[in-house]
C-alpha cells in the first residue's frame, strides 16, 4: 500500500530529481552546472581523506584524475564567480529582436565559458605532468 502510493506520487509530482541535471536539450552551461556539482561532491570526499592524513594521495593515474576534478572546479568556479556576481551576464535589453536569444548566455558569458575551458585544460595538463612524470621520477 505504502509502495503503491509512493509510486503514484512519483508520477503525479513529475519531478525530475538528479536525472534532471543531465539533459541534452539545453546549452553547454547546463553540462557545466552538472559537472561543477559532481566535482564539488568528489572534492569534499577527497578533503575528508585529506583531513585524516594530509600526506595521503591516491597515486599516479588517480592523482591525475584528482587533478582533472580540482582544476575543472577551479576554472569553472572562476566563470561562475564572474557570472553570479553579475559581471559577465550583460545588461537588460530595451529592444528585443522577434526571436531574441538571451544575452546572459550568448553575450560575453560565452567567451568566459571558452576561457574557463581553456584554463581547465591548461591547468589539468600541468597537474597531470607533475602527477605522471615528475612525481614518479622523484620517487
Amino acid at each position, binding site marked *: 500500500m505504502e509502495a503503491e502510493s509512493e*509510486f503514484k506520487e512519483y508520477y503525479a509530482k513529475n*519531478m525530475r530529481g538528479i536525472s*534532471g*541535471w543531465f539533459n541534452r536539450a539545453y546549452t553547454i552551461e*547546463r553540462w557545466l*552546472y552538472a559537472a561543477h556539482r559532481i566535482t564539488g561532491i568528489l572534492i569534499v570526499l577527497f578533503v575528508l581523506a585529506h583531513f585524516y592524513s594530509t600526506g595521503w594521495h591516491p597515486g599516479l593515474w588517480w592523482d591525475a584524475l584528482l587533478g582533472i576534478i580540482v582544476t575543472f572546479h577551479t576554472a569553472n568556479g572562476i566563470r561562475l564567480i564572474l557570472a*553570479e556576481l553579475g559581471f559577465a551576464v550583460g545588461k537588460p535589453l530595451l529592444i528585443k529582436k522577434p526571436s531574441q536569444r*538571451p*544575452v*546572459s548566455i550568448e553575450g560575453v558569458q560565452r567567451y568566459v565559458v571558452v576561457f574557463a575551458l581553456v584554463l581547465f585544460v591548461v591547468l589539468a595538463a600541468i597537474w597531470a605532468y607533475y602527477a605522471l612524470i615528475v612525481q614518479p621520477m622523484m620517487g
Partner: protein
Amino acid sequence: MASEEAKEYVLPPEVLEETVKASEELWKPVRKIKFRIYKYNPRKDYAPHWEEHELEVSRGMTVLDALLIIKGETDHSLGIRYSCRMGLCGSCAMMINGKQMLACQTRVLEAAGSGDVVELRPLDNFPVERDLAADFTSFFEKHRAVKPWIIRNDEVELNNPTGPYKQTVDEYARYYQFTDCIKCGACLSACPTAATDYEYLGPQALAQAYRYIVDTRDDGLDVRIPIVDTEHGCWRCHFAASCSDVCPRGVDPAQGIQLLKKLLIKRKFGLKPHKPAEALPAKVKAEKEG
C-alpha cells in the same frame, strides 16, 4: 475629396493571387507526423501511458493546432490548457520533444525536424493536472511570494496621486525586459535546481523580484530581501541558464537572478539601487495643462 478617401480599397489582382497562393502553400498538408502523447489522470490512473496519433500536417500548423484537431477528431478526452493561441497568455507550455516550448508558438515541422515523431509531455517539475496540463498552484504561489507589485512608503501620494512618478528611459530599460514574462512556467520547468529542490523560488519569481526592485518607482528592496535572500532563494541558482534558454519571451531570467545577487551584495555594503522616484509636482502638471 472625402468621398474619394472613403472609396473601398481593393487589392490589385496579382497581389491577391499571390497572397492566396502563399496561404494555400502554408496550409497544404505536406507530411505525416506521428504524435506520441502522454496520457495520465493522477486521480484515476495507476500510471501514465502513451497514445499515438497520426496526422497530415502543413507548414503553418502549430503543435496546438494539431492537438486541437486530435482532440476534436480522435481523442476527445485529451487534457490540454490554452487560451490565446498567440503566445501571450502562457497557458500552453509543454515538453515538445523533450524541451519546454509554447505549443501555440511552435510549428509541428519545426519541432519534428528531420524526424517524423513529435513527443508531447506535460511540463517537467510541475505536478500533473491531467495529460498535458500541469498544476501551476505552487508556481503562482512563488510568484506571489516575492510581492510582484510596486511597494512605496508614501501612503498619501499613493491614495491621492498628484501626478505620475518620474522615470527616465534609462531607468525604464533596467527592468523592461523582465516585464515581458507571461508566467508560462517553462523556465521553472527547465531549471535543474528546481528538479531537486521543490521549494526553490525559481527563475520566474526571482526575475520578477528583480524587476520590481530595480523599478525606480519602487521602494521595496528591504521588504523583499528576507524573501529572496534565503536558502531556497537566489543563492540556489548556479547559472545553468536553461531558464533563459527556453524562455519563449526573451525575458532572460538567469540574467535577472545574477543581477539580483549583485544587488544583494551591494546592499550588504549599504548601497541601494536608487532613491524612490518622486511624483511629478502638481504645479508642473497644472502649468502644462495651462
